[in-house]
C-alpha cells in the first residue's frame, strides 16, 4: 500500500476544529507558478501554537502522526520558516506542517521533544546552525559546532 499525502485543506479542517485559533494565514510565495508541494500539501500554523498542533496531530485517532520525519528551517532574511515532515505509520499518510517566525533576533519555537524523541538532535541542529531556540527542550545546546562558536552559519548573513 502506497502512502497518501494529505492535502492542506483536509488538515486545516481537522486541526482548525481540534485546536481552535492555531491556524495561520497561508503565506503564498511571490510567484504564480509554484510547485504542488509548496502550496496544496502544506498546513500553516501559528508559531506559538506548534506544540499544541503537534500534540493534536499525534493524539487524534484519525490523523495519528506517530513518526516525525524531519524538521528543517529556512532563512528568508525578513522571516524564518520551520517545516515539519510527518508520517503516520498506522494510517499510512504523510503531512507537511509549516510555521513562520518574523524577525532575526531571539527567535524561539515550542519544542516537540516531549511528543517525538526524534526531534532531539534535529532541534539542537536548528539552534546550532540557524539560531532558532526551542523552549521546552531539555538539552538546548550546540550539536555540530563547539560551545562558544560565534554565530549561526546556515543563516544567509553569515559569511
Amino acid at each position, binding site marked *: *500500500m*502506497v*502512502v497518501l499525502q494529505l492535502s492542506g485543506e483536509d488538515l486545516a479542517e481537522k486541526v482548525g476544529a481540534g485546536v481552535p485559533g492555531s491556524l495561520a494565514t497561508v503565506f503564498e*510565495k*511571490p*510567484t504564480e*507558478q*509554484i*510547485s504542488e*508541494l*509548496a502550496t496544496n500539501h502544506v498546513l500553516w500554523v501559528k508559531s506559538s501554537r506548534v506544540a499544541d498542533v503537534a500534540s493534536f496531530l499525534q493524539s487524534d485517532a484519525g490523523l495519528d502522526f*506517530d*513518526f*516525525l*520525519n*524531519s524538521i*528543517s*528551517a*529556512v*532563512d528568508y532574511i525578513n522571516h524564518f520558516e520551520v*517545516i515539519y*515532515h510527518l508520517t503516520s*505509520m498506522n494510517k*499510512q499518510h504523510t503531512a*507537511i506542517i509549516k510555521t513562520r517566525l518574523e524577525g532575526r533576533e531571539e527567535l524561539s519555537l515550542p519544542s516537540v521533544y516531549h511528543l*517525538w*524523541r*526524534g*526531534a*532531539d*538532535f*534535529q532541534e539542537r*541542529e536548528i539552534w546550532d*546552525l540557524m539560531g532558532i531556540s526551542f523552549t521546552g527542550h531539555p538539552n538546548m545546546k550546540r*550539536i*555540530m*559546532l*563547539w560551545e562558544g562558536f560565534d554565530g549561526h*552559519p*546556515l543563516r544567509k548573513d553569515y559569511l
Partner: protein
Amino acid sequence: MTVNIGPQHPSTHGVFRLRVTFDGEEILEVEPIFGYLHRGTEKLAEERNYTQIVTLTDRLDYVSSMINNQAYCLAVEDLMGVEVPMRAKYLRTLTAELQRVASHLMGLGFFMQDLGTLGTPLMYSFRSREKILDLFEMLCGARITLSYMRPGGVFFDAPEDFWPALDQFLEDFETEFAEIEQLILENEIVMVRTRGVSILPLDMAINASVSGPVLRASGSEWDWRKKAPYDAYDRMEFDVPTATSGDNYDRFWVRMQEIHQSIRIVKQCVEQIEPGPTRAKVPLIIRPKPGAEAYGRVEASKGELAFYLVSDGGISPYRMKVRSPSLINLTVTEHLLVGWKLADMIVTLGSLDINMGEVDR
C-alpha cells in the same frame, strides 16, 4: 568513572566520541558527541549549481554514494517536473541495490570486527564488496565517490562488458555470501554476545524517528521502497525482512536478509531492462521555478534519506536540508547502552551501522 571513547577510537567508525560514565564495567550514563567531520555540506550547496551538488552528496554517507546521488536527483527532478527515461530508472535501481549490498557487507564486516573476530569475516565481506566497486568502476570510473547519477537520469549508459561482468558477479556472490552466512549466522559466540543485548522496543524506535534496518529489526515493516516507490521499485518483487526482538542479533540478521532481497532486485533489473535513452533532456544550468520546493526521499542503506530543496529561481538551491538517517538513528544510543557492559557498547554501536560523514555532514 567518566571515560571518553573516541574521537579517534578505532571502533567508533569515524571521528565520533562517547562520553561514558561507568560503574566498574557497567554503563551508567552516555552522551554522544559529534561534529568532528562537519563540513557544512548544506551551506556549500547554496554556492554550487544543481549538477555540482551531486559530488557533495557522494561525501555524505561515503560507503553508499549511489543511494545519496539517487535521493538528491529525485529531489531535483521533482523540483523541475522532469520524467526520467525507463532505462535510466532501471540502471538507478540496479546500482542502488548493488550499493546497498556493498554498504551492508561493510556494516556486517565491521560489526563482526567489533565482536572481536580479528579480520576474517571482514576480509570475506570485503572480497565481495571489492567486486561491486569494480563494477562501479566500469560504469563511471570511480569506486567510492561515484556521482554516477545526474538530475534527469544517469551519466552514461553501462558499457557492453558491464553486463557479462555483472552476471559473473551474481554467480560468484551466491557462494561467497553463503560462506559468510555459514561463518557467522549460527556461530555460537555471535549468538551469546548479541542475542537479547541492547533491545530497542518498537514504540521507542518509532517515537525516536529511527528508520531503516534498525527500525525493521524492532518489528516494523516500514520501507520507503514499498511505501512510496521511486525509480523502478514499483516493478520489482521483493520482501521486506523484519525481526521482532530488536536486539543486536536482529539488527544484523535483518541486514543479511536485505542483501538477499537486493540481489533479487538486481536480477529482476537485468531481466527487465530494455534499450533506450539514459538521460532526460535537462538544461546544462538548471534553474527551477522560484518558490518551488521538493522533498526527495529514498530508503537508503542506513534508513530514510531525504533532501529538502527550496529554489529561488537561481542556479543553486536557496536551501538544501539533508535528513540524515545515521544522525537520527543515534537518538536512541543512550537508551540502548545504559545498563550494559563496556564490551557490549562497541557491538551495539556497530549494530546501528552509522556513518560519520552522514552524521556530521
